C-alpha cells in the first residue's frame, strides 16, 4: 500500500532522513520507534507533504502512485491521514465547520456526493461519542483551549469522520493520561484495523502498543531504519533502551 524507497530528506538544508526504506501492506499496523532526533516526525511530515521538508532522493508510492508529486490536500483526498504530534489551534473556525469543509473537499476530489449537514452531524456525534468528546467541544474553535489530551482525541475524531485508508500517527500517545490513552488506542483500532487499511504508528513508548498491537516494529535512528521485527522488538526496546538495540 505504501512503499518508501531510499528516502532522503532535508529540513533547512540539514539531512534528517538518510535512505529510509519501508513497505507497509494493506491490513498492517507498523510501529516506528526511535530516540529523539532520529527523524520520526520528519518522516511523518514528508509523507504528509509539509512545505519546508525537502526530499532530495528516493521515492514514495501510495497505491503505486507517486505520493511525493501530490500536494498535501491531494494526498488527503487520496486517503492519507496525518495525525499531528502538536495539533494546531485555529481561532474562529469551529471543529464542525472545519471537518465538514475537509470531508466535502475530499469527496469532491474523489467525485463523490457531498455529505449533507444532517448526515454530517450524525457522523460527528457518533465519532465524538466513541472518543469521549462532547458535541459542545466540536462546536468550539479547532483545538482552541483544548488540553493536550483533548487535542489528541480530537485528531482521532477527525480521523473517524474522514475515514482514511492510511494513517500516519505522529506520537498520538504523547500528552495522554492512562484513561485517554486507552480511549485513543481503541479509537485507532476501531477506525483503522481493517484489511483494506494500514497505519504507521510513530511512538516513543510501548504503552500505546499494548492497546494497538503492531504487526511490525521498526527502529529509526539517524534517518534510517536500523532494525525491524515483530511486537517483541518493542518489548526489547522498553527493557534495554534504544542505545543497545539501535547500535
Amino acid at each position, binding site marked *: 500500500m505504501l512503499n518508501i524507497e531510499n528516502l532522503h530528506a532535508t529540513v533547512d538544508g540539514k539531512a534528517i532522513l538518510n535512505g529510509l526504506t519501508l513497505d507497509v501492506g494493506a491490513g498492517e499496523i507498523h510501529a516506528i520507534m526511535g530516540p529523539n532526533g532520529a527523524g520520526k516526525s520528519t518522516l511523518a511530515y514528508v509523507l504528509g*507533504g509539509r512545505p519546508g521538508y525537502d526530499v532530495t532522493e528516493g521515492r514514495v508510492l501510495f497505491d503505486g502512485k507517486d505520493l511525493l508529486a501530490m500536494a498535501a490536500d491531494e494526498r488527503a483526498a487520496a486517503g492519507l491521514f496525518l495525525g499531528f504530534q502538536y495539533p494546531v489551534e485555529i481561532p474562529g473556525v469551529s471543529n464542525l465547520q472545519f471537518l465538514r469543509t475537509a470531508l466535502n473537499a475530499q469527496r469532491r476530489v474523489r467525485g463523490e456526493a457531498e455529505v449533507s449537514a444532517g448526515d454530517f452531524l450524525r457522523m460527528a456525534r457518533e465519532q465524538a461519542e466513541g472518543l469521549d468528546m462532547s458535541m459542545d467541544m466540536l462546536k468550539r474553535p479547532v483545538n482552541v483551549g483544548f488540553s493536550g489530551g483533548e487535542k489528541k482525541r480530537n485528531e482521532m475524531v477527525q480521523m473517524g469522520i474522514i475515514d482514511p485508508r492510511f494513517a500516519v500517527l505522529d506520537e498520538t500517545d504523547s500528552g495522554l493520561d492512562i484513561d485517554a490513552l486507552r480511549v485513543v488506542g481503541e479509537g485507532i483500532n476501531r477506525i483503522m484495523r481493517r484489511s483494506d487499511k494500514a497505519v504507521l504508528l510513530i511512538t516513543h513508548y510501548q504503552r500505546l502498543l499494548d492497546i494497538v498491537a503492531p504487526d511490525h516494529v521498526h527502529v529509526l535512528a539517524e534517518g534510517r531504519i536500523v532494525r525491524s521485527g515483530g511486537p517483541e522488538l518493542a518489548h526489547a526496546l522498553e527493557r534495554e533502551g534504544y542505545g543497545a538495540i539501535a547500535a
Partner: protein
Amino acid sequence: MSVLALPSTREEAWRWSNLSALPELADRRPTGRVPAVLPWIDCAGPRLLFVDGRPADGTDSGPIEITTLDISAGDHALARLAGRTGWRLRLGCDHAAAGLVQIVHVSTGGPDHLAGEISLDADAQASIVETFIGDGWTNRFTAVALNKGARLMLNRRLLRGSGFASLADRAVLGEGASLAMTTLAAGNGDSRLDGRIQLAGAAAFAEAGGALLARDTQNHDANLIIDHRGLGTTSRQLWRSVADDQAVCSVAARVEVARGAQKSDAEQSLKGLLAARTATINAKPELEIFADDVKCAHGATVGELDRNALFYLRSRGIAPAEAKALLTRAFVADAIDRIGEEAVRDAFRADAERWLGGVS
C-alpha cells in the same frame, strides 16, 4: 474645472489617504442609471433610496424626513462639502423606529454629497443600515445625538463598484446612551472613514469598528476618535483589515480620556492580515489620557496567515484557496459577529463571503 481644496498627505491625519482621484470625480457627470436589483436586507422597516444624493420617489421613508439640517461638520475638509440638506431621523422619548431602517445610497458616477442627522431622545432606540453602491464620489456627513439612555445601532456596507466614498460622522452620547457601529468595506473603489464619538454623559457606551477588505490597488483609510468625557464611560474599537495585491488598508484609532473622566474603560484591537507581501497595512493605535483612574487596553498586529494552520487544513484535504478563505473568514468574523441583529449580521457575513470567494 471646479476648485476643490483637499488636504495633503503631509498632514498627519491624511497621510494614508489617497484623494488624488477626487478632482476628476468631482467633475464627472452621473449617468442616473439605477441597478434593477438593490441590496435591501429582507427585514421589515422603512426603506429610503438616495440616487446621487437625492431621495428617489416611491420609497417608504417612515419617520425619516428630508430637510435642512441644523448641524455643523466643522472644518473637516470633506465633511463640510456634504452641505446642510439631507435626511433626518428624530425619535422622541421611548420610541423605537418601526423595524430596521434601511438606506441605500446609489451613486451613478458623479460627485454626490449629502448630510444626515440622527437624533434620539431619552430611551429611544433605532437600528439603521446604510448601504453604498455604484461609482463616482459619494461624500457623507452624519451627525448623531443620543440623549440619556438612547440606543443606536448604525451599520454600514460599502459595496461599491468603483470611485471613492468618504463618510464622516460626529456623535455625542448622553448619560447611559449606547452606540454600536460596524462598517464593512467589501466592494471596489477607495474609501476614507472619519468618526468622532464623544462619550459626554456618565456611563455612555460606544462600540465602533469594522472590517476593511481591499485588493488590487484599493485604498481604505479609517480614522476614529473616541473621546471619553463622562464618568465611567466605556468604548470598544475593533478593526480587522485584509489587504491583497497592492492594496492599502489603514486604521488610525484614538482614545482620548479627558481630565476628570475617571473610571473610563477603553479597549482597542486593530489587526491586519496581509494576503500578499505586496500589500500594505497601517495600524496606528493612540491613547491620550488625562485622568488617572482609567483602564485602557490597546493591541495592534499585522501579519500573514498562520502557515501551520494552513498546512493543518491542507493535510485534511482542503485545497489552498479554500483553506486561505476559511482562515481569512475567521479573521474577519471578529468584526462582523459583533452585529447584534441576526438578519443584518447574516447580510454582512454574506457580503464578506462574496469578497473572500475571490481571495487567491
